[in-house]
């Protein structure tokens, strides 16, 4: 099992519903977020192209955050989901430094927090909160090892990219372009 997400940058309208859904679902403290939407504008008017990306932890296969954690608080769960065990985390900040995506932050309670792919929902067979609320259905979540899954299908038929693959982290969030 290898959970991953594919996000269609051509369908995303940048409404930030995914961000709000995540904050509500996971009780993210005010002023913080586990996912965010970035807009890259390329070119000058009138030849402009815009790419909207809903970004979050990439649940990398080769996670620098798991490697550098001195206590083992950052770890892999089933399906390659990267999680932080709160009462093992000492808040040293090494994982925040090690993440090329700046997807982790220091929770006001002290431990490090990040996207969990809504593992509590996924275990019940539901989709992550961000995916389930997306009004344009631009996000696909599923198991890369299941040949019949929606995500495998969409990645087969569309061109896609990952963020900063040169960092060697083997990110598992794919952006359909």
């Amino acid at each position, binding site marked *: 099992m290898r959970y991953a997400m594919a996000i269609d940058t051509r369908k995303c309208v*940048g409404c*930030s519903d995914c*961000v709000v859904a995540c904050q509500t679902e996971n009780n993210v403290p005010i*002023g*913080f*977020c586990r*996912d*965010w*939407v*970035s*807009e*890259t*504008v*390329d*070119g*000058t008017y009138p030849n402009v192209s815009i790419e*909207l990306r809903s970004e979050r932890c990439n649940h990398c296969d080769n996670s*620098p955050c798991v*490697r*550098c*954690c*001195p*206590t*083992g*608080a950052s770890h892999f769960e089933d399906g390659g989901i990267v999680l932080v065990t709160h*009462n*093992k*985390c*000492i*808040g*040293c*900040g*090494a994982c*925040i*430094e*090690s*993440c*090329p995506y*700046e997807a982790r*932050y*220091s929770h006001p*309670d*002290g*431990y*490090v927090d990040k996207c969990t792919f809504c593992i509590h929902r996924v275990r019940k067979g539901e989709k992550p909160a961000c995916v389930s609320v997306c009004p344009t259905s631009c996000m696909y979540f599923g198991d890369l090892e299941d040949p019949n899954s929606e995500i495998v299908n969409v990645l087969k038929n569309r061109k896609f990219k990952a*963020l*900063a693959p*040169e*960092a*060697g*982290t083997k990110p598992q969030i794919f952006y359909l372009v």
Partner: protein
Amino acid sequence: MKEELFVSGRNIPNIDPYLHIWHWQIPIYLFLGGLAAGILFLAGVYTILGKEKEMPATVKWAPFLVPFALIIGLFMLFLDLKHKMYFWQLYTTIRLESPMGWGAWVLMIMTPISIIWSASYIREVFPNWDWKFKFLYTFEAWVIRNRWYIAWPMAIYAVILGIYTGILLSAFNARPLWNTTILGPLFLVSGMSTGAACIILMSKSHEERRIISRLDLLFIVVELFFITHMIMGFLAGSEVQINAANLFLGGQFTVPFFVFVILLGLIFPAILEVLELIGYKMPIIIPAVFILFGGLIFRFIMVEAGQITRYLY
């Protein structure tokens, strides 16, 4: 033209707009670690060479600073933690992949060694010192008999500690300025140099100061070579590494780096040490203080500058 912005709004403290998770505590921790490594390495080496008599400050007096430096350093690491009450988790896990983890263990070994080393000399400073318990006298006698054997692991661990202060940063692939293998040797040499400066400050023997000054001069030259090498390596690297080098070559850290680290922290004390060695009378305190100051500023700059370098996508 390419422009990127967060349309969902994102202003997480210490992450946006620039990463700033490690504050002043980490540079001080790295500085004290390097300083301790430098002193213990030289103390170990001169003990192995059998020069305790000729080099009293190196072997006996400067190591008294080390337990304090290491304990304050560890306290700085503790201050940096955001989930402080769980700090003990560091010592219930051994994770060799994590530099922070094995560094904490190296310090756990180094601190008792440095305390034992200094304790074995304490009765030379305070002849009336009373150990109170007989077993402590027995242990002291054992340490004094076996100093030569203790000096070996002490010198080796000192090198590991010195290199660790650099590897703690260089292990982070995500921060291009840190992600260079030269950082380990560079921080080691810089630590040796600050350790030597401490010994020079504490030494009363002209000959000892002369020997350590010459050694320090060598450390400074090697450090300058490593810094040049590091910047050359970045300039020959990928875009993110070129951007990292440019922080020092015209970017926002150019002035503090060249003025405080290169000129005042390395070249100026090196010139004074050369003048001293060729016979001019110099107040030895000046180059030593500048080296310590330069070493501290160097770590502050590396920690601050490294955090703002990142991958582009």
